[in-house]
């Protein structure tokens, strides 16, 4: 049937079939800003403005084009993000302008829908309150920002549209006075901001810093280098590409938790017109691998194959299909007949280790499973000193146990891959990945191709959070291209994101520690049982980080870590921002407080006495590498004391001691409390993570910066370009950064382990320094004759001599390329570090506990973080804000829940609740800047640490409010209500 759509003022007549969605129809019309976030309308990434009376500008309404049939919209007028302004860079709607200015864009996948939601609001209400802005944005889920900066952007755009003068959007940077007196932000009062939905953005980010470096670009709030294309909704994501003859690929998943495939009949599916391939374990070579995107050689076990004759969890791979349309694909998947021999399944890791439990990996060819007969993927044992003797001799010993659950990364962009044969018969894989170089190396043997025949392209990524640190579906898409010879697009549904992707490892953690008579820790024993689901992937390394974080945040002369990493018939956990640390700290930060209470010490004093200090070693760093031995570490920067002081003031810590605040006479069932957690993370994996960068001078004095590092929305392209610009003495727009493509950019391990700023940034710094050297040498030889090259420097786009002579970079470039001593000024550098300097943070949470219902409402989250020097304070605070909100979901509402047969009960957003714009607490990020001598321009990491401390801070706040000690996540109303003695 044919329908008419008026989109952004252009009339379209388009042929649709009866079940076609408005979303897919709009994307077929190349309005690629309309995104697929899910199938059931909760993500709102597909939202557009729609009306049937286009002459009335107030009649437009925000609707989700993914839960509307195209036929329903016949005759309607629609506005998409492409319609907000003309395609050119310089033309921006005030909303777009403010989203760029405020750093409201991280991955940018939900940005087009957020802009439209805001536009509808401002069209109706030119002077909205913050609460009204939050309500307007509530139906567009964002997993990156925590919503603070988008809300600020909308409020500023409203003011701009009203014709008001706007103050510049700059994050205040306050220099610390001499003598380590650390200023804190706010109005000079007590630092307590009133709460409530209308004032949340008044709690501005307050960076505090010591010894400011003299920089022009670094440490400045530069707009993100990819912001313009994202705010314009341009076709930049993996799916935003049309290929002639492209087929649609999809996965048939297992309905059973544990079964053998006895028979697969694909004849009916193959007979369906438009079906080009159906592949099962009978069609694809059996090559064992581990899917975690990690350095060579990948940590064991190798317990996966592309398609197997056995399924090990509901959602496991059974068969793949390529067909001409999504509808034929779906129909074909349903026509595949599979006969299963259903096997007993096991869902609890402790049960799984018992004799007689079903053996999940009984295949004889799996490699390096620790003890397959007991379902033990790995067993980790690390020992420092003599814990037993230390605890036997301790003045006091305390032991406690904690349980953490399974949660999902829930990036708004699902996993999506396009693959095709190029004109040189090489396989191109365009994929939403954090690890393009690992993907190429890992997928090659599965496809029977040498890596040189494969090119992996990483376009813009719609969020990853570790979920895309996998070679997850690239093999399946590529198998279909190889089988059909055609381009194939392969995407997960939202349900498959939950059942067939990755998640966070559930664990049971038991801490046992002892102190001397002064309260100094003398030893700690950590025992963990971890659930790695059906496959090993990141099972070894995540759990090793749990051990390292659990046993390194506080300095220990004796420590022991024992961990069983156990298979169960559940969807597989993997990498998820924090990578074992959130689990460890949920236990540790309560264990320390409980121990302090038992000792009669103030918990904060007890922690301060024991946390690692500058100059101290991290002895376990050597024993606990990721999949191999690591390297000893010494702490060289630590702003933890200052973080605690700044955070205490910001959160209003002293309210803990005010009975009038803790109990609300108007609401007698409410109790209030504030909790704290100390966090320490890593910065890249020492001796393992490596990044490389190439920098090339162009005719006009601009530079191409080519990096293998993978910006998945965090802003790392911007940060890396800032490092290059600073070093080369040019403004940011003179750096043209490109990431990442295995054909065109040098290697990088990828975006994980909080490594990009420090490791890849170190490579950019080296390459820029080398290019700078080449520039000044050429200038000294030819253009500033008589001047020693060592005395020249780069500034404001020119080579400058001490005698005041200057020659522009353009002149140097033209001269070196065309006129004399011709050569390309260019350098490639690599960086690897044996140092992994820990960022530190103090995480605070304030809560209200409803003692009659058990409902916990978090009212404030404050994180003061020492990330070294923030290369970009706006993107750094954006990481902190968004991370805290994700982590709050871990504490309160996110949970993968199963029935007795191992079927996930909530495989959709909404049922799996992530925070929306209108319900987040007041959030505040404070950058307490130290100078890390080993980092580029003093930087350490910031990406993961915001994930680590919220859950224990909330737990400690609930304790403060009610006296309850809750040792199991998440704190759902019923769990808290039960703990309250009901």
């Amino acid at each position: 049937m044919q329908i008419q759509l008026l989109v952004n003022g252009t009339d379209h007549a388009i042929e649709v079939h009866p079940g076609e969605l408005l979303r897919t129809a709009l994307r077929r019309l190349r309005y690629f800003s309309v995104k697929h976030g899910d199938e059931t309308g909760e993500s709102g990434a597909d939202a557009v403005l729609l009306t049937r009376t286009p002459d009335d500008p107030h009649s437009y309404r925000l609707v989700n084009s993914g839960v509307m049939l195209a036929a329903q919209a016949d005759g309607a007028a629609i506005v998409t993000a492409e319609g907000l302004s003309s395609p050119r860079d310089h033309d921006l709607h005030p909303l777009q302008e403010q989203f760029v200015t405020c750093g409201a864009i991280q991955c940018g996948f939900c940005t087009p829908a957020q802009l439209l939601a805001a536009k509808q609001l401002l069209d109706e209400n030119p002077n909205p309150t913050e609460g009204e802005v939050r309500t307007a944005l509530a139906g567009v889920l964002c997993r990156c920002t925590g919503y603070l900066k988008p809300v600020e952007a909308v409020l500023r755009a409203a003011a701009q549209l009203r014709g008001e003068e706007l103050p510049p959007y700059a994050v205040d940077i306050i220099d610390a006075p001499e003598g380590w007196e650390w200023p804190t932000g706010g109005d000079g009062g007590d630092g307590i901001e009133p709460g409530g939905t209308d004032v949340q953005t008044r709690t501005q980010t307050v960076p505090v810093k010591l010894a400011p470096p003299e920089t022009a670009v670094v440490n400045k709030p530069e707009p993100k280098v990819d912001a313009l294309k994202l705010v314009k909704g341009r076709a930049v994501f993996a799916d935003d590409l049309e290929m002639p003859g492209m087929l649609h690929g999809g996965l048939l998943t297992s309905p059973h938790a544990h079964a053998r495939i006895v028979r697969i009949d694909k004849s009916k599916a193959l007979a369906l017109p438009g079906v080009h391939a159906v592949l099962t374990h009978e069609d694809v070579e059996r090559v064992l691998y581990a899917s975690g995107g990690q350095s060579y050689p990948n940590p064991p076990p190798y317990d996966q194959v592309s398609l197997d004759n056995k399924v090990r969890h509901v959602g496991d791979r059974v068969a793949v299909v390529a067909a001409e349309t999504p509808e034929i694909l779906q129909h074909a998947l349903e026509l595949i007949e599979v006969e299963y021999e259903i096997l007993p399944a096991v869902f609890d890791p402790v049960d799984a280790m018992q004799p007689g439990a079903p053996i999940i990996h009984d295949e004889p060819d799996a490699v390096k499973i620790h003890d397959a007969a007991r379902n033990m993927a790995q067993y980790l044992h690390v020992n420092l000193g003599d814990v037993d003797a230390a605890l036997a001799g301790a003045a006091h010993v305390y032991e406690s146990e904690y349980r953490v659950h399974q949660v999902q990364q829930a990036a708004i962009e699902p996993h999506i891959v396009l693959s095709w044969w190029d004109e040189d018969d090489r396989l191109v894989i365009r994929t939403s990945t954090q690890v393009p170089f690992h993907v190429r190396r890992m997928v090659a043997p599965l496809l029977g191709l040498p890596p040189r025949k494969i090119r992996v392209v990483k376009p813009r990524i719609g969020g990853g959070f570790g979920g895309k640190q996998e070679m997850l579906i690239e093999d399946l898409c590529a198998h279909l291209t190889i089988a059909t010879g055609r381009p194939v697009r392969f995407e997960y549904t939202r349900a498959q994101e939950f059942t067939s992707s990755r998640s966070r490892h559930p664990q049971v953690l038991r801490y046992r520690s002892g102190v001397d008579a002064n309260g100094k820790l003398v030893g700690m024993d950590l025992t963990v049982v971890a659930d790695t689901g059906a496959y090993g992937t990141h099972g070894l390394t995540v759990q090793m980080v749990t051990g390292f974080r659990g046993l390194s945040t506080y300095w220990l002369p004796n420590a022991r870590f024992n961990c069983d990493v156990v298979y169960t018939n559940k969807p597989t956990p993997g990498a998820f921002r924090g990578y074992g640390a959130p689990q460890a700290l949920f236990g540790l930060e309560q264990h320390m407080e409980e121990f302090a209470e038992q000792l009669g010490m103030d918990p904060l004093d007890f922690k301060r006495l024991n946390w690692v200090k500058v100059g101290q070693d991290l002895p376990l760093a050597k024993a606990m590498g990721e999949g191999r031995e690591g390297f000893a570490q010494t702490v060289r920067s630590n702003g933890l004391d200052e973080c605690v002081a700044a955070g205490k003031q910001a959160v209003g810590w002293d309210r803990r001691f005010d009975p009038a605040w803790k109990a609300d006479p108007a609401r007698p069932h409410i109790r209030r409390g504030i909790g704290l957690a100390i966090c320490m993370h890593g910065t890249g994996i020492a001796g393992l993570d490596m990044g490389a960068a190439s920098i090339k001078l162009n005719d006009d004095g601009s530079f191409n910066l080519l990096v293998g590092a993978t910006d998945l929305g965090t802003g790392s392209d911007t940060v890396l370009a800032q490092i290059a610009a600073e070093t080369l003495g040019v403004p940011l727009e003179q750096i043209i950064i490109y990431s990442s493509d295995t054909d065109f950019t040098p290697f990088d391990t990828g975006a994980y382990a909080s490594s990009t700023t420090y490791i890849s940034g170190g490579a950019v710094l080296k390459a820029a320094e080398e290019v700078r050297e080449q520039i000044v040498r050429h200038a000294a030889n030819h253009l500033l004759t008589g001047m020693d090259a060592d005395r020249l420097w780069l500034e404001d786009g020119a080579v400058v001599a001490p005698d005041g002579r200057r020659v522009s970079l353009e002149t140097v470039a033209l001269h070196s390329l065309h006129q004399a001593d011709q050569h390309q000024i260019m350098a490639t550098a690599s960086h690897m570090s044996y140092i992994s300097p820990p960022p530190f943070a103090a995480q605070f949470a304030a809560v209200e506990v409803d003692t009659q219902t058990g409902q916990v409402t978090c009212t404030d989250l404050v994180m003061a973080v020492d990330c070294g020097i923030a290369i970009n304070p706006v993107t750094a605070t954006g990481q902190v804000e968004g991370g805290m909100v994700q982590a709050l979901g871990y504490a309160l509402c996110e949970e993968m829940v199963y029935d007795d047969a191992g079927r996930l009960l909530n495989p959709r957003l909404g049922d799996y609740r992530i925070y929306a714009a209108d319900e987040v607490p007041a959030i505040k990020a404070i950058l307490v800047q130290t100078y890390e001598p080993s980092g580029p321009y003093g930087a350490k990491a910031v990406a993961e640490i915001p994930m680590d401390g919220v859950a224990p801070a909330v737990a400690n706040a609930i304790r403060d409010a009610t006296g309850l000690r809750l040792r199991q996540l998440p704190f759902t109303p019923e769990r808290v209500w039960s703990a309250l003695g009901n």
Partner: protein
Amino acid sequence: MAILKEYHKPTSVPEALALLARTDVNLVPLAGGTRLVGALETRTAPGVDGVVDLGGLPLRAIQTAIVDGAPCLSLGALATLTDVCEHEGAAALAGGLLVQAAQGEGPVNLRNQATVGGVVVAAEQDSEVYAALLALGARVVTTSAAGEMVTPLADLGAIDGLVTAVLLPEAVEAGAIARISRTPADRPIVAAVAVRHGTSTRVALCGVAARPVLDGAPLDPPDDYKGSTAYRRSMVAVLRQRALAEVAA
């Protein structure tokens, strides 16, 4: 992936009823689509051959009507929840109860699509709008081949034909919602919706039966990851008391 053979957009109720009565194909009514289209996309609405889009029917008006000789507020079945919130009379009922309840139903993009009729037909156990309609004493107009019928929402069983309107009293003094949810804007685990007019009060409950029910009806609470049967049962008294206290104030 929605696989449909047919799409129809009738312009009159009899035409729609005739399409829905066809026995050669299974056609289902489509209102806003927020629930059905998602179900079709995720293949959880099996056996649907096609849809009858009700969007062409003249059922979107919100107006005062005289039914059985008494004036009332008639919400057309295809009025969206946003239409209700933007209608002066509907938005003012019981101190803004429907506006508050609509927020519990979902965010603005959902409210722009979801319809009054859809809420009644879906009868989701955690629908605060449904509970608010119950508490307000809503009556449902259904139209079938046999003609029009008006049934109190509380007595509504299997629907014969189409829901064409929901009738509400013209004026109600006060309303309040007390709820428990995982996050502030999440759908409720349990909620109590209270309405007061003069000295008479009425309470409806979410999350304690297969659909929202009037307080006093037999409870059969779900038992799921959001709350056990026992928890939900225990919360009724707490929330009822809170909602009633608020409407009394």
